[in-house]
């Protein structure tokens, strides 16, 4: 309660004598003060860089993700050596049964994870943004129809539908010739994730647009003769970006985890490609013999998702200090 008074006092006492900063500077300043956010950002950049430069890094370590190494597995196809065959030449050990390099598998796997997560996030954002702005701004029949459709979508058991429908849909995509194999599977997975995922952002944007359009500055623009297009682009969008950025930062980790989960359930990417989910679902069968093979990818996946979540929180706190406080 004291804080309310405090805010009132501050707002009204702002004067030109205080050195003021732009919204960006304020957000950046707030972000910089958040040590956790900085570390998480660093970690995220690290993981992203590892993923992007997977070919270079693996080459530097002299490994790759497709070679079946010889002489590294015993007669039961288990890695020779402690901790799942961790050695200088195979820093995270070897894949039991096949003999590929786990380090390379995870690096390349993270590429697919990030790919799916980024495409899903941006597609959801784009669709949610377009529809959210359109319905929030123009209201009317379309708005209520789409709103009801979104409610309707939310009532479906998304996870189950993805599992039930992905195989036939992949076949259909392949039959049409749109994409093949893993590309087709990723496409279908992404379409599903977006299909069930856009509504959240759409609602957010719609409600924000609705409240923004009631703000006087929109009316001021109308009074100046601005077209709807100009109002959307020049007046609304700049105010919606922070929401979008926050949403992106918070949904990326969600999509990474989702991709892993669906791979684990057998939906999405399949061998010989790798993802975290595939490696983990494989590793479960070896946990007694080769716990390192299970725990290392687990730890890395958790670290990535955690870093992205922490970064997302920090970005949200920086851009939108009232939310979540």
């Amino acid at each position, binding site marked *: 309660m004291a804080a309310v008074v405090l805010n009132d006092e501050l707002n009204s006492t702002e004067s030109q004598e205080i050195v003021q900063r732009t919204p960006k500077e304020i957000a950046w300043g707030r972000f910089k003060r958040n040590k956790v956010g900085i570390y998480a950002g660093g970690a995220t950049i690290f993981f992203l860089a590892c993923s992007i430069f997977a070919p270079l890094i693996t080459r530097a370590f002299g490994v790759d993700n497709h070679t079946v190494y010889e002489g590294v597995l015993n007669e039961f196809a288990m890695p020779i050596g402690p901790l799942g065959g961790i050695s200088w030449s195979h820093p995270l050990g070897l894949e039991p049964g096949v003999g590929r390099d786990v380090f390379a598998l995870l690096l390349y796997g993270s590429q697919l994870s990030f790919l799916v997560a980024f495409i899903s996030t941006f597609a959801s954002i784009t669709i949610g943004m377009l529809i959210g702005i359109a319905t929030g701004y123009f209201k009317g029949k379309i708005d209520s129809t789409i709103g009801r459709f979104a409610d309707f979508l939310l009532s479906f058991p998304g996870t*189950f539908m993805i599992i*039930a429908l992905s195989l036939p849909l992949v*076949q259909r995509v392949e039959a049409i010739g749109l994409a093949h194999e893993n590309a087709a599977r990723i496409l279908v997975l992404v379409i599903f994730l977006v299909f069930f995922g856009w509504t959240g952002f759409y609602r957010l944007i719609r409600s924000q647009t609705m409240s923004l359009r009631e703000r006087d500055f929109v009316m001021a623009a109308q009074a100046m003769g601005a077209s709807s297009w100009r109002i959307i682009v020049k007046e609304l969008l700049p105010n919606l970006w922070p929401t979008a950025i926050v949403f992106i930062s918070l949904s990326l980790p969600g999509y990474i985890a989702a991709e892993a989960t669906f791979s684990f359930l057998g939906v999405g990417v399949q061998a010989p490609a790798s993802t975290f989910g595939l490696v983990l679902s494989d590793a479960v069968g070896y946990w007694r013999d080769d716990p390192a093979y299970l725990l290392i990818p687990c730890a890395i996946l958790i670290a990535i998702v955690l870093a992205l979540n922490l970064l997302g929180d920090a970005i949200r706190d920086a851009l939108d200090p009232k939310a*979540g406080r």
Partner: protein
Amino acid sequence: MLKYLARRLSATFLVITLVSMSVFGIFAVLPMDPAALTCGKACSAPVIEANRHRLGLDVPVQVQYGRFVKGLFVGRDFGEGAAAFHCPAPAFGYSFNRHECVTTLIAEAFPVTLSLAIGAFVLWLSVGVSLGILAARRKNQWQDRAATAFVLVGTSLPTFISGILILLFVALKFNLINPIEMGRWVSPLEDPVAWFRTFIFPWIVLALLYAATYTRFTRSNVIETSMEDYIRTARAKGLNERDILRKHTLRAALAPIITLAGLDFAGLLGGAIITEGIFNLPGLGRLSIRAVLRDYDLPTILATTILAAVFVVVANLLVDILYAYIDPRVRVAS
């Protein structure tokens, strides 16, 4: 209020109809042929045709849907001659893979999922809300930071990881569950202890995931509400802090959680696919996944999908009604 209820009920009914129709439509246009899939070894075109007839897939999808709806109200007959049998209303169809009326299968699986959902719900709600309150009251102190850490770990751990880790490295490793009975349905009325032991780890796994959201939500709502003018009014009246929190802050701060909790709970009722899978729980999630992956058992797939959607739609309705009950503004306005 009655008028509002009637309107909401009819809208809900409409949505349920639309949901069931679209589920039917979606699965009908897929290039999957359950008749061929259940054909067996002596498979030939006439057998597939016979199968298609037996499964009721030899008629247009709208007729199939009509039969489905009719079956819900008056029951349905399957098979012919000596092999005929009847599924009483509400009949969701017949699973030729499980040799049971789908309604029976659902009736068997539902208590499991319900137990899972209720226990997890209670656990996550109590943990999430109390942590959220604690974090809000001790804002920026160590309790708040600990809660934040919990939230982040909770949101970052996909259930399939937390579930497996808890199963393998806790439950199994330390013999905390009776392995041969693992996941077996025991009625809490018959053997509450065994029931509790069956479900405690799945509850923890789900609660870990959901509690995080609730901690976060509660924390921000409590902080926001405690800045409301009416809290200041309560304080100005001379109310003590405990009563302010209990009677004034929480009432308003927790009301929106009803919506969230209701929908999450309803979502879980449709089956927790991963958790049920990991812990062998014979609930709706496993029923539906098995129907897809093992048998492509269309009647079961349709029924569980529709049911899951119905749970959400109905929960939406109940949540709104409950909300109206709690928030007089909504109540009187409607």
